[in-house]
């Protein structure tokens, strides 16, 4: 067994080179473009990923989302971390 990637609140995440976040005007919504892959983002994923700028850490992003959506921070942290870890396991997100 290899160690699964973990993610701390003070980790800074970024979208690696070769992966691009953009609006998909033809179909509506936003997409993450990766090698041979297109991820259609739901509105929540879009809200999270548009805050991933390679400078803010996870805590920052979670604080921002908790304020923007007036939701409990703990729940947002759990959801965001799960989502970011999933994207990391797909190699479309990395710890800076």
């Amino acid at each position, binding site marked *: 067994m290899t160690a699964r*990637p973990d993610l701390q609140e003070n980790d800074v995440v970024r979208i690696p080179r070769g992966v691009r976040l953009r609006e998909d005007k033809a179909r509506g919504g936003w997409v993450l473009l990766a090698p041979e892959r297109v991820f259609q983002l739901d509105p929540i994923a879009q809200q999270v990923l548009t805050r991933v700028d390679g400078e803010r850490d996870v805590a920052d992003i979670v604080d921002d989302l908790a304020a923007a959506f007036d939701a409990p921070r703990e729940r947002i942290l759990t959801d965001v971390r799960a989502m970011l870890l999933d994207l990391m396991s797909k*190699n479309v997100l990395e710890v800076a």
Partner: protein
Amino acid sequence: MSEALTEDMNDTAGSVVKPIPQPPIGMLAELTHRCPLQCPYCSNPVELTRKREELDTDSWRRVFRQAADMGVLQVHLSGGEPAARPDLEALIESCVESGLYSNLITAGVNISRARLDALADAGLDHVQLSVQGATAEVNDRIANLPDAFDKKLAFAREVTDVGLPLTLNSVIHRHNLHQIPDLVELAVELGARRLEIAHAQYYGWALENRAALMPPREQVMEALELVEAARERLKGKLVIDAVVPDYYARLPKPCMNGWGRQSLNVTPSGRVLPCHAAETIPGLEFWNVRDHGLDEIWRDNPAFNAYRGTDWMPDACQSCDRRELDWGGCRCQALALTGDATQMDPVCELSPYHDEVQTLAIQDASRDDDFIYRRFARQPA
């Protein structure tokens, strides 16, 4: 490639009445058929297009603009060897200008460091490098090019050195199937982020060479388990995508995720196809970007509508729960193995030809034919 392209997409195209098809997501731009390699499973047609028939730079620029306008997100710059085109940098720039994600699919034997820098500067997003085996001996014999393996390794290191993301792609058959663990190791060692283990699909050159390529069933099953184990072990480090060997399968592959549904091919001379092998199907006329807009072709070319959706399907497919999962499998394979492109893919266990296909594979796997290498002007009998 198409299998991986869209596995994360769950749109609802193809249901009920849809007079205007959903736009394609991906476009394969076959810039040229010229290539220094001669792989016997090449996905190009047996009858290759000559340099003098290739689209010029401005025509490709127009095609990329039209593609982006209609909703294409990713362009795969392929061939032949796309670097045989001296205007590759300009074509990448054109993709960037249109907002298209550009993926270079290359053999990696004729791109100098200076040229790679220029391609990266032009805005290239990703490099997919083919390897024909995990050792020089196997690689160079299959590619029929001495020193190809060493050049590929050097190129791969330069790609990661430049900072471009790298995918390693290897077409698998009985001469390199035993090297799958070595290919995984090689991908990790070279710093690739992704590895494609693509079992040969038997169209065009690969169909000509089927008896020289088909692996035995037990080895295929063993290989599938190896790939699964490696994928789990390397999660987060290396993405492994597998294209399965369908002759031994029970269910057909969702070829291209449906005919004319998510992607299109443009050939070196500008003909627009739903897939690599579509031109093998008699009676279909494929329109050219010299005469028609890409959007018009996608929407109105009768060849694109011939097998789009589910209306064309035989009854057994129409009444099957999987009709919008595998889209009846592959039309070109139905043609190649049954003589009729409207049949269900004979790989399906419900096909009356299913047993015959399995027998064919087992027979071919026990033969010892020589390769017919992919070449211009050589027409295999």
